[in-house]
């Protein structure tokens, strides 16, 4: 593989930029637009077995260095969402279906239905910080993570990626558990549990009070997590959190990620961000004599602290 191409768990991506779950992915046509703008792969909105409205507004709060959200896993249910996956597939890049559920059986069932709808791989949402009974609430325990990965792997034949929470004392333990459970890769990190308060109105802004922080503010946390996970597991890592430029992506690659996901950056840079990151990567590689992305993966690990 040369140039920007990467391979993750058997999936070949034309470049290492992937649309992160929860951004421009409620509808197939928006995902298609992101594919046409240059993304190497797409992750769907997190979907469950049943329809959910999500939390009432306000469900986002803009802060200086990032964005807080508590969408609350809104989705029309996996059955209704199948049509959106089919539309997104027209972009001819891998579509990764994001699954959530209350327990291992439910998540595995959603994963199987997403695959039946055409998803090329599954991302397990074990890390959403703002929905009671889901995401990080079940994904903070290594035993749970292992069990959910095992159950999903038993039900689907496509690659399974575990998206992990940084809201834990050790994300490496979660990554090891995912690998032990048979996951084909890990995705790190999901948003950091956070809150914003309006002092004049004496109240947390988000209706759910607590939300997840994304954007530039979390990038250094994400890079650290990926760096630690890289030393602990052998399965591929996808880095996510605050990537908006090629340099940001390079930090993740050097830490050990094979690809990066981009979400919040679309707020300020639009869907052009994918092509911009790719052209910056190409430029960096040509200046520094790298022939492939793979040559840079984990590049920062030769130093000992």
């Amino acid at each position, binding site marked *: 593989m040369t140039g920007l191409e990467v391979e993750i768990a058997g999936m070949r991506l034309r470049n290492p930029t992937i649309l992160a779950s929860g951004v421009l992915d409620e509808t197939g046509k928006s995902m298609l637009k992101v594919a046409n703008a240059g993304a190497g792969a797409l992750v769907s909105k997190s979907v469950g077995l049943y329809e959910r409205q999500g939390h*009432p*507004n*306000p469900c986002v709060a*803009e802060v200086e260095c990032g964005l807080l959200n508590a969408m609350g896993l809104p989705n029309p*249910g996996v059955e209704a969402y199948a*049509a959106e996956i089919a539309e997104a597939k027209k972009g001819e890049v891998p579509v990764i279906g994001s699954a959530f559920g209350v327990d291992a059986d439910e998540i595995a069932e959603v994963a199987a239905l997403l695959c039946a709808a055409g998803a090329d791989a599954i991302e397990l949402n074990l890390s959403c910080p703002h929905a009671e009974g889901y995401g990080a609430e079940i994904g903070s325990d290594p035993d749970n993570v292992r069990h959910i990965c095992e159950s999903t792997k038993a039900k689907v034949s496509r690659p399974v990626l575990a998206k992990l929470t940084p809201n834990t004392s050790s994300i490496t333990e979660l990554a090891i558990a995912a690998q032990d459970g048979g996951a084909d890769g890990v995705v790190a990190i999901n948003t950091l549990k956070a809150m914003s308060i309006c002092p*004049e*109105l004496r109240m947390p802004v988000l*209706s759910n009070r607590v939300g997840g922080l994304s954007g530039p503010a979390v990038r250094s946390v994400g890079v650290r997590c990926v760096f630690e996970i890289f030393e602990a597991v052998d399965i591929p890592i996808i880095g996510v959190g605050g990537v908006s430029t090629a340099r940001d992506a390079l930090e993740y690659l050097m830490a050990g990620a094979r690809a990066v996901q981009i979400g919040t950056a679309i707020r300020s840079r639009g869907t052009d961000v994918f092509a911009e990151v790719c052209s910056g990567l190409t430029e960096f590689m040509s200046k520094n004599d790298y022939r492939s992305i793979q040559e840079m993966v984990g590049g920062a690990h030769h130093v000992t602290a």
Partner: protein
Amino acid sequence: MSLLRPFTIAEQIDEAASCKTMRFIGTLHADPGQFVMIWIPGKDEFPMSVSYTGEAFGVTYKIIGEGTQSLSAMKPGERVGIRGPYGRGFEVHGRRMLAVAGGAGMAVIAPLIDMAIEKGAEVDLVLGARTESEIIMRGRCESAGAEVHISTDDGTAGAKGLATDITSQLLENATFDSVCACGPEKMIAGVYSMSKKLDLPFQASLERFIKCGIGICDSCAIDGMHVCKDGPVFSGEVLATLDDFGKGRLSPSGRRLPLD
């Protein structure tokens, strides 16, 4: 980026039956058609078009649900959180504009008329409502200098019939440089198709369920475009590419529904 700012309510004015204007202490500049997200602490947050821009800016709303009910119960001196303005507003093209407003859509058209007349354009306004008591901002547009044509479904004021009926007559009998519309989407679709036949530049403001307001959550998507960021005002050229224009919308969960 637009950080949340607290604003104090200056006054609430009754515009018509179940329609009010809320003015604030402070300044916020918005183009006609742009919107703000208004947060009623502890209750809800929703998008509202800015009906008065600048000093003592304001929004005009129809009381249709729990959220707007709470808004209407708020008193001068109380505070709300506001972020924005967001989205893309109207532009004035040419010297003679036909503006078509249906119901509370008038709240979006009124500041457009102010801007168009300020820029030296002549404006004909078709103002449609179900009944006389639901007509808003007629005086404001007349004083601004617009030629106002009223229609009501029940004939209690102006011509009996739909806004599209008068629009069609005006387009037949006069020459316009552009057409702008805001109101029920079926009305907009009707006005759009008439404008298209005459090859007139067209713009309309659309409404969808908005959550983030900043173009990332996809809740207000119409065929890959986003009402909160690419809109709410769309040109005729863009509307022509949207299969769901006049036909479909998303529920808060993302389920596809037919347009009411």
